[in-house]
């Protein structure tokens, strides 16, 4: 080989390497694919994954969105979007994942959300020779990187990249100036509200609503009815598929909260609002629409 050709090849490789290091996510390895997952593990595949088991509804959505839907051979019982996902066999509710059910699908890649029980399940799957990858998925910012790496592993980098860019731009949007305030109440006895550490708080901010518990840094917190009343949110947001006021709405002690007393509830369907995913923008638009439609 002529020296100049060698040098070009080397330069190209170096350029690619430098460019990839800037992202810090993946490096094309000669003859294989590799990413670093959120548990700090280096996950390598010889060829792009052909049989993927997804253990989180968001991952299922992403996989279908980037055109890798036909490679999904297993999903959790909760994965209900897009509708095509329902034709994929379920491997249980995934909490914790049934290692046997997953292995029975003969996957070459299993995608898990990073949590204690899932890490343990991943280790067991690895012992069976099945590759696993763990992603954090609590915040809007984590959607982009997860999408990109899924794209690498399934050979759908181009589509993954364009979806990721949409997610990243959404995540980097500054909060819309808020004209309304709300509180997310997920449980009534004891009262549990959503704080800044949660994806829902971010959604609200992008939709132009201020979460009155934004000062609480954890994803959720136990508070008293009085605190909610004192902060006087304009709306009470409830994650539910129905439009029926929650059961505590008629209780006198809850009616001290103005939004409960005046029945200003926002009923947010779980499928769209319950988890961060590719339809985040749609969720934000829907929330904004409802806020503006309310009196």
């Amino acid at each position, binding site marked *: 080989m002529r020296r100049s050709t060698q040098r070009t090849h080397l330069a190209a490789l170096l350029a690619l390497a430098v460019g990839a290091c800037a992202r810090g996510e993946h490096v094309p390895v000669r003859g294989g694919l590799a990413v670093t997952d959120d548990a700090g593990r280096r996950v390598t595949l010889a060829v792009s994954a052909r049989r993927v088991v997804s253990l989180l509804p968001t991952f299922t959505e992403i996989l279908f969105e980037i055109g890798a839907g036909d490679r999904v051979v297993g999903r959790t019982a909760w994965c209900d979007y897009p509708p095509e996902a329902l034709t994929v066999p379920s491997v249980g509710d995934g909490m914790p994942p049934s290692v046997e059910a997953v292995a029975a699908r003969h996957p070459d890649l299993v995608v898990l959300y990073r949590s204690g029980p899932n890490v343990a399940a991943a280790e067991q799957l690895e012992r069976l020779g099945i590759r696993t990858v763990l992603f954090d998925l609590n915040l809007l910012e984590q959607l982009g990187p997860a999408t990109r790496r899924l794209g690498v592993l399934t050979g759908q980098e181009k589509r993954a990249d364009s979806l990721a860019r949409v997610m990243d731009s959404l995540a980097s949007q500054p909060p819309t100036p808020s004209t309304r305030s709300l509180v997310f109440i997920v449980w009534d*006895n004891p009262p549990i509200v959503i704080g800044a550490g949660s994806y829902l708080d971010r959604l609200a901010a992008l939709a132009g609503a201020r979460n009155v518990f934004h000062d609480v840094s954890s994803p959720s917190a*136990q508070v008293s009815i009085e605190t909610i009343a004192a902060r006087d949110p304009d709306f009470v947001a409830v994650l539910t598929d129905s439009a029926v006021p929650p059961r505590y709405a008629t209780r006198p002690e809850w009616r*001290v909260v103005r939004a409960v007393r005046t029945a200003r509830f926002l009923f947010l369907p779980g499928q769209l609002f319950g988890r961060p995913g590719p339809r985040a923008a749609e969720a934000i638009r829907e929330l904004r629409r409802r806020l503006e439609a309310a009196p």
Partner: protein
Amino acid sequence: MKYVLLAAALLATLAAALLLGPANVPLGDVLASPILWQLRLPRAVLAFLVGGALGASGVALQALVRNPLADPFLLGLSGGAGLGAVVAIALHLPGPWALPLAAFVGAVGAMALVYRLGLIGGAELDPRILLLGGVAVGAFAAAVTTAIVSLAEATELRNAFLWLWGGFSGASWTTVLVILVYAPLPLIVLAAAARPLDLLALGEEPAQYLGADVRRLKRVVYLSASLLTAAAVAVAGVIGFVGLIVPHVCRLLWGRLHRTLFPTAFLAGGILLTTADTLARTVVAPRELPVGIVTALVGVPLFAFLLRRWSVS
């Protein structure tokens, strides 16, 4: 004299409970504020009643099993309540009363089971059998609870556990009314058992020779104390330490005769729990601590202090 002291402490505690809180209620508006009437007052009253019930129940059970380490929850009631609560949530039972009712039924079920165990082989509620039976029933209930939790949807059940760890955030006038109607009967029964319980401290046979109908006494006291505790759990979850420590504190301060011990433990238990609840909702505002943690943090050093004073004197 002691009742004057307790009454003063009670007034101070109530005042604190009514005036402190995250909502800034100006002093002038206090009497008109719905925050006071619908939230703080029923909550303070309920905490007082539950604390009193737990204190009295603790006195009764310590006398019954003749063991100063007895706590109302030693007899499997908390396990039963937890199981009831979890079943109610797993089955999505409707209505705001589903959870407390189910917890109550669970606690009473555990009580009946331990009672039955205590009668096996003519044991006649032998204290050791009661304690062992309580531990066994509690462990069994906890195991079934864990099984249900592992098979059902996780989030709602996590919230059920938060409820079980104790708290008064759900306090309402309706709840207060329920307790006010329910509690007097077991309390009166326990008050009537005060003298026989003094005798029981000598042992079952000596007590009989001094005129106590020990068989009836044990059954009646066990059932009354358990029913009081079951109601407390149904309304406020499992709040430990009150039933264990308050009887000891009152005994140290005001003697062991039950005629004194029942009323003082009722008042002291109520004061302790109301104070603990006020702390629970103000110390880490806007968040809340589970009340059971605060009762332990407040109760244990108090008890240690009293113990030192008593052993020195």
